[in-house]
């Protein structure tokens, strides 16, 4: 060997104008960064600055197989003489490190004491001072500065123009040289960031005498052997484990779909739709019934926040999730079997509405003894007495109730619970969960509100539902309110014989809390919508005959984001013979003994928590069936955890990293309009309480689900892998880590973000 020390060039100093005197030539600069950081461009910028000073330059990157986040090197050589060196830089005079995580022997290889080192890091210089005591060392948070100046995007900050500012300062170049260079290169926009780096960079001079010895690996280590190796070369070269090249590895991971995240009941929406698609309604029901006690109900009356969040909205319309849930419940007889509990508790649930039913169902499913107390003659609460049968037929409700009760729940109807009874339940049962729903409905407090013919909408709906006794109406009916109850009242009034139905709402249609499709149905059936009107008085003698409406204007947004209604002086009068109020309900508990308080959805005596929990609207006032079901389940789990002496782990429904629309590759999916519900068109809705929404005609809609964040084994990753290192397994895929270069194509091509790249972590030892 004998040539381990380079003797090819001896250094010369130059007195080039504008350059600090201690720069010697040929000057060799090496830069270490990661793929995508702009390291090669950074080396070019530096070359351009020296070129502007009239020096010969040469700059190039060290190109390898493309890998996301892979370590990248770039070189710049500077000399007043023509440059004949065509090799990579092995003994850099200046070393720039764009990512502190890269610092290791390989990065410092061949760097001699006295060299200039510039590090991009948000850390304080003190952290590195000892390590780089023999160097002129500069440290700058170029990433922070570039981000502050908005260079690049929020996720990919481009730091090269900023870092060069710090480099100029470290060298002692005057600021004017930098300004001139950026102007010439058309980079004036980045100049403020470069200037900030120029001023901010923290510089430490080398401590002792400069010895010129390399601190990194011995230079010889970087010099590969030269002699022919034919005597020990194999016929076929040994296998190259390209997995060693990678800095990142792809993997399969479940991410949270927006529908799952939005579901107030905590249903695994992606799970049940995919099960329906691949294995049919029974498999789907098995997924759905774990969280959902009332699928037939929710499949009809849920406001479906899942559909408002569906990523497919950005492409060709939300998946019709509500009707898929209905399809499953209408086409499967599947029953989940109750588990065996280690210790069986006896629990009382007060209130047979959606929250109570969900609570009882979840408790019974886990093998506990549940008794359900209901003050009315039948179970169902608002489902039975608040939602009209044309939306929720009796037999549908009965089907869900039958499934719930088949788990062995004892129900006691016509059993109201007052304070005394509450005391008794508390002593007799291991725990009591109260889910009595809302109490009294709100009134308007307008003049004339006590006239005959003015009635609470809920009372009207309850009477309407009761037996076959339809509430007969005639004449002009006015419904006041904008929620689902108001819509139900209006459509029921139409069916009960009203000659006209007007819906009065104080804000605009866009702000109505009712389900959109229900509003559309009501208008189609002939309900007239009077938005931006506030009733201020009722007219009539004994019996209501008219209503005075003030016009409303919308002001500044409220705390809830909706614009505040401002009642004006302009009024009009309508004649009417019936008014239904649907203004919402109060939340009043009133069944706790006076010594008990309610705190965090639980009853307390003095500072002692009692085994009494509250679930559903009486606790949360969320006001939808689906929220009540979800809260019922969570309360059941919290109660069981507390009884078993464990901390409840399920405080929220579903958590995780949410799949954004931009992470779904729309181009993978064919455009396919949503399958709409079939509607039965009647000549007249009068006196007909038949179900009008007939749901979907097939389960084909399930095909439209992107399955956001969950692998469907679509083989896209396998097809796109350029190295063929992905293979199928029984449950998914295997990635051969020995050969995966970490290029990231599989994760980029995954249509549904079921894959991600994870940093392997660079170790100093490598």
């Amino acid at each position, binding site marked *: 060997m004998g040539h381990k020390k380079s003797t090819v060039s001896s250094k010369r100093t130059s007195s080039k104008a504008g350059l600090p005197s201690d720069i010697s030539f040929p000057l060799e600069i090496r830069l270490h960064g990661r793929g995508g950081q702009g390291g090669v461009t950074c080396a070019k910028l530096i070359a*351009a600055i020296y070129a502007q000073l009239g020096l010969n330059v*040469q*700059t190039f990157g060290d190109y390898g197989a493309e890998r996301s986040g892979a370590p990248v090197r770039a070189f710049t050589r500077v000399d007043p003489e023509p440059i004949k*060196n*065509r090799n990579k830089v*092995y003994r850099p005079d200046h070393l720039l490190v764009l990512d502190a995580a890269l610092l290791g022997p390989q990065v410092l290889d061949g760097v001699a004491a006295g060299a200039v080192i510039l590090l991009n890091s948000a850390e304080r210089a003190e952290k590195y001072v000892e390590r780089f005591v023999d160097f002129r060392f500069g440290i700058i948070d170029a990433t922070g500065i570039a981000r502050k100046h908005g260079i690049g995007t929020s996720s990919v900050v481009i730091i090269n123009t900023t870092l060069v500012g710090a480099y100029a300062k470290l060298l002692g170049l005057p600021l004017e040289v930098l300004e001139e260079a950026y102007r010439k290169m058309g980079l004036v926009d980045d100049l403020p960031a470069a200037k900030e780096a120029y001023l901010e960079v923290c510089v430490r001079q080398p401590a002792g005498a400069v010895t010129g010895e390399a601190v990194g690996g011995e230079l010889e280590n970087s010099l590969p052997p030269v*002699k022919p190796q*034919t005597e020990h070369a194999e016929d076929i070269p040994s296998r190259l484990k390209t997995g060693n090249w990678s800095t990142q590895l792809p993997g399969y991971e479940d991410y949270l779909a927006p529908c799952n995240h939005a579901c107030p009941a905590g249903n695994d929406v992606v799970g049940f739709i995919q099960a329906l698609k691949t294995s049919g309604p029974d498999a789907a029901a098995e997924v759905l019934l774990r969280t959902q006690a009332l699928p037939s109900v929710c499949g009809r009356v849920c406001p479906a926040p899942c559909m408002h969040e569906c990523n497919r909205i950005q492409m060709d319309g939300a998946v019709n999730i509500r009707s898929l849930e209905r399809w499953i419940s209408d086409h499967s007889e599947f029953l989940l079997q109750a588990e065996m509990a280690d210790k069986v508790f006896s629990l009382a649930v007060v209130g047979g509405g959606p929250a109570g039913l969900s609570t009882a169902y979840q408790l019974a499913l886990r093998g506990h003894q549940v008794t359900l107390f209901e003050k009315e003659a039948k179970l169902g609460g608002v489902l039975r007495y608040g939602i009209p049968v044309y939306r929720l037929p009796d037999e549908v409700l009965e089907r869900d109730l039958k499934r719930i009760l088949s788990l062995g729940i004892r129900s006691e109807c016509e059993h109201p619970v007052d304070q005394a009874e509450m005391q008794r339940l508390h002593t007799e049962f291991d725990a009591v969960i109260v889910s009595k729903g809302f109490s009294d409905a709100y009134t308007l407090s307008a003049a004339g509100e006590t006239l005959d013919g003015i009635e609470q909408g809920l009372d009207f709906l309850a009477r309407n539902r009761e037996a076959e006794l339809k509430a007969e109406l005639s004449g002009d009916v006015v419904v006041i309110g904008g929620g689902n109850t108001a819509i139900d009242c209006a459509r029921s009034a139409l069916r009960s014989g009203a000659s006209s139905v007007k819906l009065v709402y104080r804000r605009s249609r866009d702000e109505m809390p009712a389900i959109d499709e229900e509003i559309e149905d009501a208008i189609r059936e002939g309900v007239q919508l009077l938005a931006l009107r506030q009733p201020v008085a009722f007219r009539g003698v004994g019996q209501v005959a008219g209503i005075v409406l003030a016009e409303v204007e919308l002001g500044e947004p409220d705390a809830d984001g909706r614009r505040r209604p401002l009642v004006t002086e302009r009024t009009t009068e309508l004649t009417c013979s019936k008014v239904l109020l649907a203004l919402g309900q109060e939340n009043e508990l009133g069944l706790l003994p006076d010594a008990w308080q309610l705190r965090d959805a639980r009853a307390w005596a003095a500072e002692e928590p009692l085994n009494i929990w509250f679930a559903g609207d009486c606790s949360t006032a969320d006001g939808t069936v689906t929220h009540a079901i979800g809260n019922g389940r969570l309360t059941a789990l919290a109660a069981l955890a507390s009884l078993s002496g464990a901390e409840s782990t399920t405080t929220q429904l579903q958590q995780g990293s949410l799949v954004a629309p931009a992470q779904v590759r729309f181009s993978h999916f064919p455009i396919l309009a949503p399958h709409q519900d079939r509607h039965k068109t009647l000549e007249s809705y009068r006196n007909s309480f038949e179900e009008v929404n007939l749901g979907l005609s097939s389960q084909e809609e399930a095909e439209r689900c992107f399955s956001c964040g969950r692998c469907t084994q679509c083989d896209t990753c396998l097809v796109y892998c350029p190295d063929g290192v992905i293979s199928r397994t029984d449950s998914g895929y295997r990635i051969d880590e020995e050969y995966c270069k970490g290029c990231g194509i599989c994760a980029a091509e995954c249509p549904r973000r079921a894959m991600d790249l994870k940093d392997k972590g660079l170790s100093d030892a490598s």
Partner: protein
Amino acid sequence: MPVELISANHAAALAATLAGRANRTARGFCSGVYPITPSTECMEYLCGQEIEKGKVVRADSEHNAMGICIGASASGARSFTTTCSNGLAYMIENCVAAAGYRLPIVMSVANRTLGPPWNIWADHGDSLMMRDLGWLQLYSADNQEVFDTVLCAFKLAEDPRVMMPALTCMDGFILSHTMAQVEVPSQEQVDRFLPPTDIPQRLDKSAHTLGQMETPHQSVVHRMQHHQAMLTAQQVYAEIQDSFEEVFGRRPADPLVTYRAEDAETLIVSMGTLGVTAERVVDQLREQGQAVGSVRVRMFRPVLDGDLRKIFAGKKRIAVLDRDVSIGFGGVLWGEVRGFAEPATIVQNYMVGVGGGDVRPEHMLTLLAELEQSHESGAPQIVEVA
């Protein structure tokens, strides 16, 4: 002359652009291109240029890219393309046609290893595959040379005495992706250096067929004409150097670049950037009193046998460095030039930097130290350089 800091790939494309514009008063410029690493930046740059009476067609394959160049050139346009490695291998069937039609198409190759197994780095094996097809071949060693060589190649290829396609080669990445200063002349200067092209066999003059079926005797005559025309290229190139110098005030590099060769006992023969590293080694060994020189072969086709014989005369040792392997034979350059050395000269072949290894002066010094001890020419050696 304005100086620009550009990569060699861009230098080639810029030269082609200026040459293309220079033909605007005649039949214009048309180019078929298809990307492949490390030649992609060249075609990208070309696609971004506004060329009056010019069209750059993004083809669906290398084969069709050359097909477009053939069509363009056969109708009298100036034509240029770029590719390398397996892209060149795919293009090669049409390259044979371009040579047979005697069309003065210029192609820039950023030399890259042929796969599989896949490798994107520098190796001369791709352009050397074109050795016997009737294309001129020129190899460059820095960015300015790349720029100048492309301009000269158009003039050489289009000279009525030569009239055949030309390859201008540069080491992939080592040169193609290195940025350095390049003197760029004005369009007016290029117009003066490179007048409108006139392709005598072009199809728009009269209805006729190019490359039709012929008898054995006709083929002999055509081969002879093509061969003779290629042999005149050396003389024509010398004239081009003069005219280049007259217009641009700077002389383009010689077909053979000798360096301290005259009084040398030991000579290093190489092509491309290896030759520049060899010159550094020469300086170093001269300092130690050793009589070493270098020859860098820029013009590989036609082979410059007469000049090489003169340069090789009286040498003790010649080390031929090949960045290629002719499997079952040895280095291609070695095979070409070894016959021009005198019988007493030891000619040793080292295949170094095959597949893109970074050949450093230290490597060459070790090889020369070994050669110093030899008393006869040995078998070609493949040297492992990581």
